């Protein structure tokens, strides 16, 4: 009888000890740890300008020393296409007045006044003349906006030679 009780107590003691080891009171368990890594990318507006056709100043005849290429009606107008997100508003800033000097130093002067018309589709006659120097346009649902470049070129003070210029236009997304 005594032997059995001792055996039983020994069993109980072992059992209790192992329980204590498994689940000690007040000791927190950390079987796992989690961490969240943020992943990010800042997507910017995709604005692009493609020149489809350069302005042709050689073909039209000068009238009283003035070469006129009307942006809405002239077949010699330059054509550009702005590509961007549909519905995006874009502010255009461009050089509207320029004086070109003859490259050879002959003293010849050409004065250029640029005019721009624009439309959401490739339809020149439907295009609207934009404000001089700065305009805000809205890109069409197809993601395009077309610009026609014309000029009023004063060649009355010009001398034979080379006159070189680049038309500059700046685009800025308006939020």
């Amino acid at each position, binding site marked *: 009888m005594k032997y059995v009780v001792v055996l039983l107590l020994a069993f109980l003691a072992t059992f209790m000890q192992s329980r204590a080891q498994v689940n000690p009171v007040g000791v927190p*368990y950390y079987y796992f740890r989690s961490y969240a890594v943020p992943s*990010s990318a800042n997507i910017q507006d995709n604005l692009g300008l493609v020149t489809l056709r350069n302005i042709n100043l050689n073909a039209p005849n000068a009238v009283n020393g003035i070469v006129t290429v009307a942006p809405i009606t002239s077949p010699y107008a330059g054509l550009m296409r702005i590509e961007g997100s549909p519905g995006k508003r874009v502010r255009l800033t461009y050089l509207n007045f320029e004086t070109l000097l003859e490259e050879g130093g002959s003293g010849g002067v050409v004065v250029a006044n640029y005019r721009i018309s624009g439309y959401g589709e490739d339809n020149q006659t439907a295009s609207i003349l934009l404000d001089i120097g700065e305009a805000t346009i809205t890109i069409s649902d197809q993601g395009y906006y077309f610009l026609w470049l014309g000029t009023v070129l004063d060649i009355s003070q010009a001398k034979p030679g080379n006159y070189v210029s680049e038309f500059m236009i700046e685009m800025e997304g308006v939020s």
Partner: protein
Amino acid sequence: MKFLKIWSLSSIATACACVASAQRINFKPFVQGENITLTVLENQAGLNFSSKMPILVGNPYITEIGLNDPQVVVVEIQGPVEYDLTLDFNLPNGLSYLGNDTGTLVPVGIRYAYSNTGEPTSVAGRSYAVEVPPLFRSIQFPLRKRRLGGPPPPPPTPMHGGYTRLRDKAYVYVYGNLGPVPSSILPGLYSGLITLTVSYADNTL
């Protein structure tokens, strides 16, 4: 006396049952005060694709942050040296606009690698990093790489009085690629959360 005998037999049976179930060894219950700690060593702000490619626009190109790029997020795992670890990744399918569901996601492919050769720094560990194949969301590896060819190591020494278990470090490198970005996408900040969970490997399964 007879009642006592029956009681003692039943307690022996319980003890035997206990021993029988203990043959499936699960070391988790013996993890006491031996916490896993995770520390972000590099790029605590997260995996930022804009720091790799400052101007990201809608185009068919893919921006890739490789394992050896400085934009990689490096996480240090500290734990007992003898344990195996399970790494679970919860990865986003894509990055969403300001974290909201706008219907358009920027596709993202998150990759990760681990280094468990016991190197003292994450920079040294990077040269031994094991790249986990794409689409693997969960892997298991020992905190300290074991030698190949030898017999399996003994199980971890149980905790007992005065015993201090050795700890070691492993490194996890998070990187990936972004794109192609849809061309008609709304500009702005696109984000997503990668959740990394490290746990002691459950050897009973």
